């Protein structure tokens, strides 16, 4: 019954404003395509953010999350790139993964295929070592890697991801070489670290927060200390210029009408000051850092250039 009334009201509103339909956006549910299975980090971010976006878009807004898992997010993001730019299909966007896939695979999209709305999560990389390795400070780690190239084994998730780029940055900054052991995902890499099967690991801060007692966390790859774990030092404090992380945000297909884009951007930008949203994200281990519009686009572009540079010198497949 309620649903029916709702529909009647909507139809009424549509008739009244038939001439200025766009001003009434959104007039039907907005679909957010998530390129991963329900229950993954990106999915949880989308589902946590959805009610807040609905609230900021206005009374009638409704968001439906649709999972299209497969090919590490590529199936979903391709779907978004090819959707109608009418504001009713949005998608989640992961960096640097989505850009790296345009380099190491055939992809039916590129960095110009999207309208960049907002990046919401920035999960910085951390370097950790196993307690048995004896490498409990950054200096010791770098000294060991300098003395014995390739002697330090590094567990991390797959090649061409944020962990891998962080390691490349580390290698370039310190002129060292490590042996990469790419696990399928961060949890197995972390388990191998806990068991002492690899000496060092590159993970994300959200993935080690719960395991701080059992691992040495050497530093965080951010400019300033992460509010997510303020007791952990950054690399810059230790004299190493290493900033890198995994990012998750929202995009729409390229060519979104300007008024719709403005409305969506406005809704997303209000997230960063919503304490309730910040708390919800903290509870699901998602460190928030909202970056909207042009800035987000620039960020993506920079990451693409980084990935391309790495690919040209050391292709990973």
């Amino acid at each position: 019954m309620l649903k029916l009334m709702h529909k009647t009201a909507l139809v009424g509103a549509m008739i009244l404003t038939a001439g200025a339909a766009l001003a009434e956006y959104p007039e039907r549910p907005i679909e957010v395509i998530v390129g991963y299975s329900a229950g993954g980090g990106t999915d949880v971010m989308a589902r946590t953010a959805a009610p807040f976006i609905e609230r900021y878009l206005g009374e009638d807004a409704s968001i439906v999350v649709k999972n299209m898992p497969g090919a590490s997010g590529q199936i979903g993001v391709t779907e978004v790139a090819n959707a109608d730019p009418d504001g009713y299909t949005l998608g989640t966007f992961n960096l640097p993964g989505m850009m790296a896939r345009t380099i190491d695979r055939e992809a039916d999209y590129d960095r110009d295929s999207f309208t960049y709305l907002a990046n919401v999560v920035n999960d910085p990389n951390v370097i950790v070592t196993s307690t048995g390795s004896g490498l409990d400070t950054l200096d010791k780690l770098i000294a060991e890697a300098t003395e014995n190239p390739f002697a330090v084994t590094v567990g991390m998730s797959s090649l061409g991801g944020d962990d891998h780029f962080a390691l490349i940055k580390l290698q370039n900054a310190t002129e060292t070489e490590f042996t990469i052991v790419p696990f399928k995902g961060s949890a197995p890499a972390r388990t191998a670290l806990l068991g002492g099967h690899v000496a060092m690991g590159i993970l994300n801060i959200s993935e080690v927060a719960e395991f701080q007692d059992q691992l040495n966390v050497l530093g965080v790859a951010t400019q300033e200390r992460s509010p997510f774990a303020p007791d952990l030092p950054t690399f810059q404090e230790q004299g190493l210029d290493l900033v890198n992380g995994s990012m998750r945000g929202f995009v729409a297909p390229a060519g979104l009408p300007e008024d719709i884009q403005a409305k969506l951007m406005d809704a997303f930008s209000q997230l960063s000051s919503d304490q309730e949203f910040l708390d919800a994200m903290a509870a699901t281990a998602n460190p928030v850092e909202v970056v909207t519009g042009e800035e987000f686009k620039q960020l993506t572009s920079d990451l693409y250039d980084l990935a391309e540079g790495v690919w040209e010198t050391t292709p990973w497949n």
Partner: protein
Amino acid sequence: MYADLLNALPNVFAWTNFAAVIIGVIAGIVVGAMPGLSATMAISVLVPFTFGLEPLVALGLMAGIYNGAMYGGAIPAVLLRIPGTPAAVATTFDGYPMAQKGEGGFALQVAVVSSALGGIASAFALMLLAPPLSRVTLLFGPSEVFWVAVFGLASIIFLLGGNPIKGLISACFGVFVSVIGSDPIYGNDRFTFGQLEMLDGINIVILLVGLYALPPVIDLLETPLKTDGVNSSKLGTESIWKALPRMKGFGMTWLRGSFIGIWIGILPGAGGSMAAFMSYNEARRTSKTPETWGEGEPEGVAAAEVANNADTASALIPALTLGIPGTAVAAVMLGGLLVHGLQPGPMLFRDNPDIVFGFMWQFLFGAILLVLLGGSLATNSFARLLNLPRPLLGSVIIVLMLIGVYSIHGRMFDVYLMLGFGAIGWVMDRLKFPLPPVVLGLILGGFAEENLRLALRIGRGDPMVLFQNTTSLILVALTIAVIVGPTLKKRFVDGRKKA
């Protein structure tokens, strides 16, 4: 810790939370019993829906479904020789012959009692031993896990069937299917022919439904209105009180199966089917009458079913403590935990004791409820369903197969893939190529390769890394024993006969 366990108990009995477990078990049995639908699919469909539920309601549903489906899978395995879940493949070995002999009812009773016992043992392992067992998981690095996979693959030799050439062809086919997708280390695609849908590899459910469900459907349609199928009047069900004494010799099998199931569960990646195969092999190996196995030996059903339920809760031990799920279903459940902000790790038990320990209790009650809810009423009603006119049953199974495969990822591509495997499965079935080696090959082949290559990277190319510690060496010895043991034993026996 044990105080937390008791503190969590009252909350579990809140009526919504308890009702969730009951509904979950019933739904799980139904899903498991429907050829084509699987626990993985049911829970992945459920996860987004649980976003708006209270944590213990959501988790209770999942715990119930998991337990229910692991037993439910036995129902079509016994009655139609279609395993309802991957873990029920071993149940078909003796369950289906029993049904053909008119003992289907007893087979299902053995299955339900064994499933419940396995589930209870596993739930206790999860409740009481999670922290120490997770330390055992840590002992298994890539080289040790590689040997576990090899050990599992070695048991293929028991599954070869009458013609070893055909059995080996099946095994090679299964292992080959497991390498389709992106390379485990470099990520470049192998045999995907540019299809993004194949990059993540071929989901076991797609293969299982194609290989195991399509050929029987074709059979149902091939010989219409023939009434030699199993029907409920021939199930030969007697009261559970009469059936129980017939199971009194299964104690050792139950104990061993529970142990194997719990053990396989805490090792990431292998899962219920390997547990069931291994338990079955072990029980047959130690049986006094191994020749009756495969021809309707109730103990075979007990061995398979106790093990595939014994790995349900224990698969959550590495999932909860380390974030690495022990089975495909546990992987989907981990998603369900994350949705409720339950981050795996040592802090989980400290931060959310009510929910985590409540969830463990729900597993225990789910296992116990199996006996009540999966008893004769449930099995008889399913038997009646499966006794529909054959063409009608066939067409309904076709629809269920499509739904079950489509819903895993929400794409038709998987359905076409399943039909392709179905065509292959039909030819294999008719030419008597054994199917279990395909399933085991798919589950363990890629898993072995990935860990071998990780181990070799850790050892920087030196194969000696595979033999560097005691755990690896023990596993190597066990593998050799499995392969060589039966031949030696046969020689010994033959030699004595001659003498």
